[in-house]
């Protein structure tokens, strides 16, 4: 049975928190450069130029990409034959977030209670999702999710009769209503199926896929392309300043569901997509 020290997990999580907030992921950077080539709105181009220059400045390691360094969302794949020693897995993850946000000069954006709103002061607790898998693996995917785009996300419990057309209408309308608020060009995570909570989780997990990687099922790959093209014809453009690039990508993730249900969730990700995956 493989053993992993809790202290090692603390260190890895802390490093990931800092890295994602200073270094924009390569595929998003490429997509933004490509967006600048395609965009013909003057104000849209101006916004994209600032975003690209911003990524260059942040990479120097002194100023985070965005002041909203997010609430941390962690997806953990933990092998059933793996043993964590010297502490609990959950506490190691939270301690990693605490250290990363302290040492990396990142903003503490979490309140202890949703209505009484007292800041916890260390950006914990992170939202952690666990999946137990066979073997000895320990995989951690971490994202720093800002609220500007999260607030523009939504879920609808459609019915089977609404079908693909109902899903399409909901997704496009959600992005249209969000306008310039979620910092377009956005990445749109779409969850279809499952139940209420699984559907939302699918939409979030979809955001971890690299830009341009299509759903392996050709049916959904086509749907992603059609949604992307429809969203980009809305004219919202970078920052809502107008233009042809409103979204960099649309990813659909699906799951089986009840015979009476058709849940659909849209999780919007701003252009500053901050996430990373690691195996320990």
């Amino acid at each position, binding site marked *: 049975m493989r053993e992993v020290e809790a202290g090692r997990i603390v260190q890895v999580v802390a490093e990931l928190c800092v890295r994602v907030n200073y270094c924009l992921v390569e595929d998003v950077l490429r997509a933004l450069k490509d967006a600048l080539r395609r965009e013909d709105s003057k104000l849209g181009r*101006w*916004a994209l130029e600032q975003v690209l220059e911003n990524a260059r400045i942040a990479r120097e390691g002194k100023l985070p990409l965005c002041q909203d360094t997010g609430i941390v969302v962690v997806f953990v794949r933990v092998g059933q034959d793996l043993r964590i020693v010297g502490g609990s897995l959950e506490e190691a993850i939270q301690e990693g977030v605490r250290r990363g946000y302290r040492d990396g000069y*990142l903003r503490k*954006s979490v309140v202890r209670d949703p209505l009484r709103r007292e800041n916890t002061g260390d950006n914990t607790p992170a939202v952690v999702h666990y999946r137990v898998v066979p073997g000895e693996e320990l995989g951690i995917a971490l994202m720093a999710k800002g609220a*500007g785009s999260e607030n523009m996300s939504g879920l609808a419990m459609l019915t089977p009769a609404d079908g693909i057309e109902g899903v399409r209408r909901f997704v496009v309308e959600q992005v249209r209503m969000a306008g310039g*608020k979620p910092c377009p060009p956005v990445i749109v995570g779409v969850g279809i199926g499952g139940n209420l909570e699984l559907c939302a989780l699918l939409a979030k997990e979809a955001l971890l896929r690299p830009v341009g990687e299509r759903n392996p099922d050709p049916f959904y790959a086509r749907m992603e392309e059609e949604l992307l093209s429809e969203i980009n014809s809305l004219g919202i453009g970078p920052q809502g300043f107008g233009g042809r690039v409103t979204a960099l990508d649309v990813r659909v993730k699906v799951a089986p569901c009840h015979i009476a249900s058709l849940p659909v969730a849209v999780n919007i990700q701003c252009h500053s997509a901050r996430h990373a995956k690691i195996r320990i």
Partner: protein
Amino acid sequence: MAFVGLHTPLSEDEVRSLRAGMRVLITGVLYTARDMAHSRMVEAISSGEPPPFDLEGQIIYYVGPTPPRPKFPIGSAGPTTGSRMDPYTPKLLALGLRGTMGKGERGKEVIEAMKRYGAVYFAAVGGAGALLARHIKDAELVAYPDLGPEAIYRLYVEEFPALIAQDAWGRNIYRYP
């Protein structure tokens, strides 16, 4: 498309001469405030107390920066979503506030109040907090230190880039207001 240089404080005439779609470079003072600071300010005003700073001619920048590193005046400091401040903004515009700055479109009541009192909404580029921080030369605490990143600061800025997104005549650059 050239940039218009603006120096704070702004007069009503100056603000009414600005048009949606113009790009500006702001030099002078910006006051920071976001959700919690707005709630407190408006509560103070409603109970007859003065706001924590004189609003006349000023611009409020919706930002909650990251902590500054040693020798830096501020951390990353880009705009947050403006519409979350919609419930509070008309009350501040009535007291002479001439500008607000954030990202994304504002609601009808704010647009109407901007026309009535003579004020504009600036959009700075969201997610460009590192770049925008370089235009901030100093930051001084004004009120509500207990709010941490949400406290009110007076920022001294040089050629801070922004766009007139919604002007004092009801015009706006957003497609779906």
